[in-house]
């Protein structure tokens, strides 16, 4: 059982879809460094699992790729406390099957049940190529390394 002060880092994305590998690569990088000050979770395919996963943690860090045509690929966007920013929460909406909820619904369900983390930190790496079977681009890989170093220093 985690200590309440520990942070949980969740890497979202698909390891095998180009730049979408950001989340899994960050988790792999943290594991390779032997980081034990944080719990690490490779993005569950079932978003409902997130609610169970972050229950009990004060701080949750979500790492994912994002699309933003106004920024260069590899730019790291940091959202300090997403739970206090309704527009950020809304931006986490994603059309999904009714059998798999989106991130906003997962957070809203957690808030409704009183088991949401106190702090939700989002690191999003701007990316643009999600071709199935391809590797992440150079700038995205560089951003992944920077993020691993930053999170490992927590």
């Amino acid at each position: 059982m985690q200590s309440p002060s520990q942070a949980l880092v969740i890497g979202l994305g698909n390891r095998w879809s180009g730049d979408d590998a950001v989340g899994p690569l960050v988790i792999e990088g943290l594991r390779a460094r032997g980081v034990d000050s944080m719990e690490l979770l490779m993005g569950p395919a079932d978003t409902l699992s997130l609610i169970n996963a972050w229950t009990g943690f004060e701080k949750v860090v979500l790492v994912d790729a994002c699309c933003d045509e106004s920024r260069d690929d590899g730019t790291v966007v940091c959202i300090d406390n997403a739970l206090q920013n309704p527009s950020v929460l809304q931006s986490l909406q994603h059309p999904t099957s009714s059998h798999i909820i989106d991130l906003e619904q997962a957070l809203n369900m957690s808030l409704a049940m009183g088991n949401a983390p106190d702090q939700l930190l989002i690191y999003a790496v701007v990316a643009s190529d999600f071709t199935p079977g391809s590797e992440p681009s150079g700038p995205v890989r560089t951003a992944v390394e920077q993020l691993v170093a930053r999170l490992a220093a927590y």
Partner: protein
Amino acid sequence: MTDKTKTIRVDYLARVEGEGALYIRYDDNSVHDVKLKIFEPPRFFEAFLQGRDYTEAPDITARICGICPVAYQMSAVHAMERALGIEIEPGIAQLRRLLYCGEWIESHVLHIAMLHAPDFLKLDSAVDMAKLHPEIVQQALSLKKTGNAIVSLLGGREIHPINVRVGGFYKLPGREQLAALRADLEGALVQAMALGRWAGTLSVPDFDRHQQPYLFVALHNDQEYPTSTGRLVSSAGLDIDAPEFEQHFIEQHVEHSNALHCLLNGEHAYFVGPMARFNLNFDTLSPMAKTLAAELKLEPPYVNPFGSILVRCVEVVHAVETAMTLIDHYTKPANAFSAVGKVKPATGWAITEAPRGILYHRYELDEKGKIQQAKIVPPTSQNQKTIEDDLRLMLPALMQLSEEELRHRCEQAIRNYDPCISCATHFLQLKLDKQ
């Protein structure tokens, strides 16, 4: 239309899987037309399979559905094993049953607590459920986690598992991993009973189709509540093996749906899923499942589809208890899979029980084991006509309801079947047209 025409439209019916619409034309005296319009585009999985190797069918078909991939894998492997004459070890059969229990738990619990229960409580969403009944949602999430854990352990991951292969599994679980799962299941059984008792407090609308009784169809096996084995039986005395399925069950294209309607002998609507299994297999339910059924006053023949939420609760208890028993008696098989002998031109058939009902697969293989033809009949396409019949028969007694209440009751009636339109096309705008 006359000046008495009245139309109720819902642009999107939530909490069903996939895209579709419902059209009902009626007046004060009768219902003239009910069409469950499935407009989600065809997904062409049967065509994708042509030319692929027989070994690929379990992984390709698992992609049809994110909530019942195990069902697709099980029907695929059983059909291929039948085609190629592969005998599987009893231990492998038991592990497959355990995997299926995991899928029933995760699928049923999601539907019970987050998709269907809001109907009974006049709530709009799972988020509203979480606000008003946080303890129920938390309990459901915990139960679902246990189901996911079973699928993850045996399937390699919780959605679209990748560890199932023709002849068995790629990798077998260890005794220690199963022991950890067994400990979780102890708690899950308590939670499943509590969820069932809570569901028993919900007000279930009365609906009796005495004038047009249901024709229930499910697998039946004297030894165990069916998942992957048994003969296909009906409440009207049908008793057939999988290869005979297409002689009795005929798929038809209807103009208003991208999902084929499947009818018995091309004429009769029938009902597959938890209610059919419960009514045709009550004797083989697990002891605690029978205890819950007795507490909820459920006994066969149970024919109120609005009570399907209760039957699902009984099946969750059954799945949890069965999973515990399977783990208790687990002996690691000598081999993870049975070797495949000489591949030859052959046809294989299988029917297994997906959470929503029977799932039929047929494959024709050539001399190299390449799939020449594939046929898949999912449960939702089999229930489509019965859903339409329910609405047609239900509405005359509900004309005193407001349009909003009527619309709500129609949506609830559809969700009684936990339809998975994405599977069926391989739903929902609602339009009520009153004349």
